[in-house]
């Protein structure tokens, strides 16, 4: 394990690619040149991650499939707006997918139904990340396992606050109301939790 720290580089923990496979940046460049095969490869690489993200927001398989397709069409249409100066392709796609999923949830006025489902889930499993990161499920050689290890190191209340903010698009006030927690406590949980994840990921990146 290398211990050299890289404090000035932006952190990013990307999945490993097969040797010789085009990088995400190369695929984006080809998509900008309107190469459908590049989109096909990008889809194969990331449809599972993006669909998981969408499902985490809207909890509906059919709607998630529709939205996934719309998001890849948007990736195709908006590729010209992607700039490598501003970040990595996966980060750009995730930001786009999250926004679309949260917008979709609200537009379809399914929010109340999702809230009800969330309520049921919250009662059964206080935190989905905790549920997903039991010891036997963590494979340490896997990127997801490493990130989950960082996240699962947080107290459950901090994980829950971040989960509600990131995956449900809730404001601090909405989280406070949802969890019957004082607003100041929610803010502290978010701040502490995000800092720990941020620092943990930087550490992880420097060790990979």
């Amino acid at each position, binding site marked *: 394990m290398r211990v050299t720290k890289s404090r000035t580089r932006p952190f990013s923990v990307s999945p490993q690619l097969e040797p010789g496979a085009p990088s995400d940046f190369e695929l984006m460049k080809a998509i900008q040149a309107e190469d459908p095969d590049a989109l096909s490869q990008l*889809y194969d690489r990331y449809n599972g991650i993006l*669909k998981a*993200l969408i499902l985490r927001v809207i909890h509906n398989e059919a709607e998630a499939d529709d939205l996934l397709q719309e998001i890849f069409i948007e990736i195709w249409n908006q590729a010209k707006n992607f700039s490598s100066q501003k970040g990595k392709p996966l980060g750009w796609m995730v930001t786009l997918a999250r926004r679309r999923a949260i917008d979709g949830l609200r537009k379809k006025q399914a929010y109340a139904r999702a809230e009800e489902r969330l309520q049921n889930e919250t009662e059964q499993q206080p935190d989905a990340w905790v549920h997903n990161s039991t010891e036997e499920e963590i494979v340490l050689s896997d990127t997801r396992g490493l990130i989950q290890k960082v996240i699962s190191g947080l107290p459950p209340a901090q994980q829950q606050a971040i989960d509600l903010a990131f995956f449900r698009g809730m*404001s601090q006030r909405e989280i406070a109301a949802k969890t019957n927690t004082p607003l100041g406590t929610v803010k502290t949980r978010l701040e502490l939790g995000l800092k720990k994840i941020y620092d943990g990921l930087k550490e992880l990146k420097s060790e990979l």
Partner: protein
Amino acid sequence: MNFKEFQNQSRLYVIGALEAEELEEFEKARKKFGKKAEDYIGECYGLHEAFALSLRPAKSSAAIKDSLMAMVRARKEA
């Protein structure tokens, strides 16, 4: 707001968790710190990628991809 406080707020900002009144202060500080602020916000967006990668990938039907690629090829030819 000092830069350390700005860093705390940046992490909330990128996940959309700042309240309206905090957002106003944040934007003022963002202008004050200039490029240093923009670089830090850019780094914080790495959190989006990490949260997505923390999830177990979900399966999609092959029909979704077939339909997507048909639409894309049709648009290209149009």
